[in-house]
Every structure is written in C-alpha cells, then in structure tokens.
C-alpha cells in the first residue's frame, strides 16, 4: 500500500528551484534511501514532506489524505516525524526530558498531560533502544556529538510515527556507532516506514530496500540498491564513476 505520494512537488528559493516537480511514492513498511550530491535538494524535499516549509507547487498525500496544506504540527499528529540534519535537541534539558517531550503529546489525552509513570516508561524505553538509558539524567547539551545524534533518533522513536524521516543521521558518527545504528534502523522499520537520507553508501546499500537518487531537485533514478549501483547516470552524477 502507498503510504506517501507526491505529485509535481516543487520549491523555489528566489531564482533557484531546489525541488523541481518531484513525483514520489513510498510504500508502507519499506526502508527507502534518499541520496544525491550536496545541494541536490534532499533536505528541502523532506522539509516539504514534514511541513517545515511550504511547497511552491504540487501535492502531498499521506495515508490517503491530502496533507499539502496541513501545518507541520498536525502532520506530526498524523504520524510524520522528522529528525533534523543539524542536531537540534533541547540542550539545557535532560536527555530524558527531551524524549518525554517527544512522547507526551502522543500519550496525553488532555491538557493535564499524560500519566507521569507511563510517560517515564515510554521515554526510558526509547532511550534504551538507542542505548542512552544510562545518560537519561544528564543535560542533553553535555552529551557527545554521537550521543546527541542518537538522542535525536530516540526522540523520533518516542513519537511512534508511521513514517520516520532521518536526515543524515550517521553524519559524524564513529564506525562502531554506525554499526549500532544500522541495527537500530532495522528495529525501527518493524513498526514504521523509514525514509533515510544518507551519505554513507555502505549504510544505504545495507539498509534500504529501494533507493531514490535526487539531483538538482529532480529524481534521477530509482530502484533497488543493486540497480542503483549499476545505473550509469547515477555513477556519472554521484558515485564519481
């Protein structure tokens, strides 16, 4: 079943068309890789999907509903979650509070907020899944860079989204951390669809069931990792072949 679909999706910044008439489909349950050279429009594209920025033209459908005009916070409510490319956590709160913020909207049924024990349990569970349970009480701003990236992922997890979009999550991680991350994404994909922007080819090839290649705002190619590896246009444009 198609979870997300765009038609003619475009975004211009002044004279520059960062995303240019993209038609894109994402099936429920897959892990989709989104790759492309720097400045190809990947971040802009997922920002359009998440509602952070408005499209100049085109439509977005999510789970059968047209969400093009829906404000960002309502899209999150529908199950579209986004983790920022630039680490964007609440530095002066504890790691636990960061994750609680991500979880409490979903668990709350009134302005009074959710049951505090359930919230705590949900937040700790998300932290445990990324391996940060021991750091729960520390200020997020004092975590190492790699741990901050993982905290971002934990926040994404705690939202229990239907679609999780990860924008270059392994940027700046050590090899060891990357290996752990691959396992983590596999786990996430058991309950959610994942759209993964990734520069590290090994990670994409290993995780993605299909890959979409973006170049200058347009889709250059789409296919299985093996197909993408063989595609000559992709090699020319991106893999430096």
């Amino acid at each position, binding site marked *: 079943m198609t979870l997300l679909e765009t038609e003619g999706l475009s975004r211009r910044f002044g004279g520059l068309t960062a995303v240019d008439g993209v038609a894109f489909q994402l099936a429920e349950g897959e892990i989709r890789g989104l790759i492309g050279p720097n400045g190809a429009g990947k971040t802009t594209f997922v920002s359009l999907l998440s509602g952070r920025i408005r499209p100049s033209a085109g439509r977005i459908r999510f789970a059968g509903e047209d969400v093009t005009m829906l404000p960002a916070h309502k899209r999150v409510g529908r199950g579209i979650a986004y983790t920022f490319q630039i680490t*964007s956590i*609440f530095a002066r709160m504890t790691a636990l509070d960061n994750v609680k913020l991500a979880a409490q909207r979903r668990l709350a049924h009134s302005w009074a907020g959710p049951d505090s024990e359930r919230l705590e349990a949900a937040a700790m569970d998300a932290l445990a899944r990324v391996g940060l349970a021991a750091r729960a009480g520390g200020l997020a701003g004092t975590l190492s860079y790699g741990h901050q990236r993982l905290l971002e992922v934990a926040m994404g997890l705690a939202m229990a989204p239907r679609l999780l979009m990860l924008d270059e999550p392994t940027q700046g991680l050590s090899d060891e951390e990357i290996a752990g991350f691959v396992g983590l994404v596999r786990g996430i994909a058991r309950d959610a669809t994942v759209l993964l922007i990734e520069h590290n080819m090994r990670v994409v090839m290993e995780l993605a069931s299909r890959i979409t290649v973006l170049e200058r705002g347009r889709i250059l190619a789409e296919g299985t990792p093996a197909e993408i590896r063989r595609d000559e246009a992709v090699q020319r444009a991106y893999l430096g072949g």
Partner: protein
Amino acid sequence: MTAGGLDRAALLHLAVPALLFALQFVLPDYHHVNLARVMVLASFAAGYNIVFGYTGLLSLGHAMFFGAGLYTAGLLAQYAGVAAAPGFVLAILAGALFAALVGILALRTSGVSFMIVTLMFAQAAYLALHYFGDYTRSDEGFVVPAELRRLFGLALADPATRYFTALALFTGTLAVCHAVARSSFGRVLAAIRENEERTRMLGYDVFAYKLVALALSGAVSAAAGAAYAMLFGYVGAGLASIQYSIYPLLWVLMGGAATVLGPFLGTLAMFYLVDTASGFTSAYLFLVGLALIALVLFFPKGVLGTLRERALPWLP
C-alpha cells in the same frame, strides 16, 4: 533523583507561605503593610514570569493586564457596587480574555517585534484610560471607599485581613507557578523557549501553547491588579503605565527568570532597596534604571537562576 527534587521543591514552596503567615504576628505595622503590598506585586511578577521566564516571551506590556484587573474590580465596585469576590472573579476573566485578544495579534510576531507590539498595545490601553478620564479620573485616580471593599463579610481595609488576603493570593499564584513548572504543559513551554522550531516538529501547536500561557499570565496579573484595588483602595492610571510593565520585568530579572520563587524574591529586594534609598534621596528611578542595566550586563540569570546553576539544580 527526580522524586527527591520534587519533594524538596514542594516543601520549599510550602515553607515560604508558612513563614509569611508566621511573620504577620511579629512584624511592626510599617513592614506589615509593606509585605502585603510586596505579596500582591510579587503575584503580578509571578504572572509575568509565566510568559517571560517559562515561555521566553519578553513582553513589555503587562501593565495592561495588571490594569485590566485593577480597573475591572475598581470600576465595578465604584460604579456598580459589585462586591470584592465577584469583582475578583470578573477581573480574572477580563485579564485572561484581554491577554488572549492581545495574544492573537501580538503572538504573530517574535523577539523585538513582540516587545514593541506589546509595548504599543499597553500604551494604547494606558492612553484609553485618559481618554475616558471622566470615569477613570486619569492619573489622579480614585479611591475605592472602605465600605465597598469587603470579602465574605470581612473588611479588606483592616490590616490583618488585608495581609491574610494578600497571602492567600500569593500562595495561590505560587501554586499555579509550581504546577506549571512541574507539568508537561510547562515542559512544552520551556521547549518553546529553547527551540521553537524543534518543538513544532515534535507536533506541538506552538501558537496555541503561547496563547494559553499568555492568557494564564494575563489572568494571574489581573488577579494581582484586582487585589491591589481591593486591598489598598486606590485605582489610578499610573498603575497601568509603562512603568508597571517594566517593574515585573525588573523583579523577575532580579529574582531569577523561570524560577518559582524568583519573582517574590526580586519584588521584595527591589521594594526594600527603593524603600531604603528613599531615606536618602527621592531619585529612586536611578535605582530602577541602574538595576536594569546591571542585571542584563552582569547578572542575567538573577539570584535564584544563578543559585540553581551553581549549587541547587533541583530548584524549580
């Protein structure tokens, strides 16, 4: 860890009103009335702290919400003979409604624009008090007669009742702030203060949260205004002037923004600073001005904010 912090915090917030309750039996008359005034003004500051401290919105117009409470209670008593209790409730509603209306417009802006927009709305409200000077008596103001200032049959002009009512108001606002600081609602406000964009992308309607915070802040400020009118019996436009938008900012800055007891501490300190200085000089505006400059320059976290950072991380 968290549970211990919560207990200590709750105990501290109970201890302060208890101490203030005990003080009334030993204080000399002069400080007795001063402290009642400080408690009312500190409630105003606590209301201001909800938007400035917890939500990170620097309003320069809170005098209009204090004034909304002051004039709702004062005018209703003066011209319609409305008693203190219903006047008080209506004043709170008026403050919340006024703040919500201002918020619907002002919250479309942020940063410096928000400061100027709130300043301008408050100035327009202040000028409106002059425009309707026939009823409000402008800067000269009017005195609410003692016989109209009664709460549940008790005379509010009586020092003991006055002190006790001020204490009740103060304890109430303290409870509200304690609840906000501890609640998941308060956590979202703090998140908005830290990083608005990220908060939105966690699925929160940032505008709605800010609006609720502002309305709550307006309600608390108006409650303080109404209490001022009823306890001290004076209503004048000076109490809704720009000065009274700057004061809560100063008090909260001094005591510590986003701390529950900071507004009280700041109000108390500034009140007695000005009071002591007035023994030597009438130039109290020097103090206010220098305190503002010194605080933003050297001490932006205030007393309790600094204390929390250095020694007492559990302080709410």
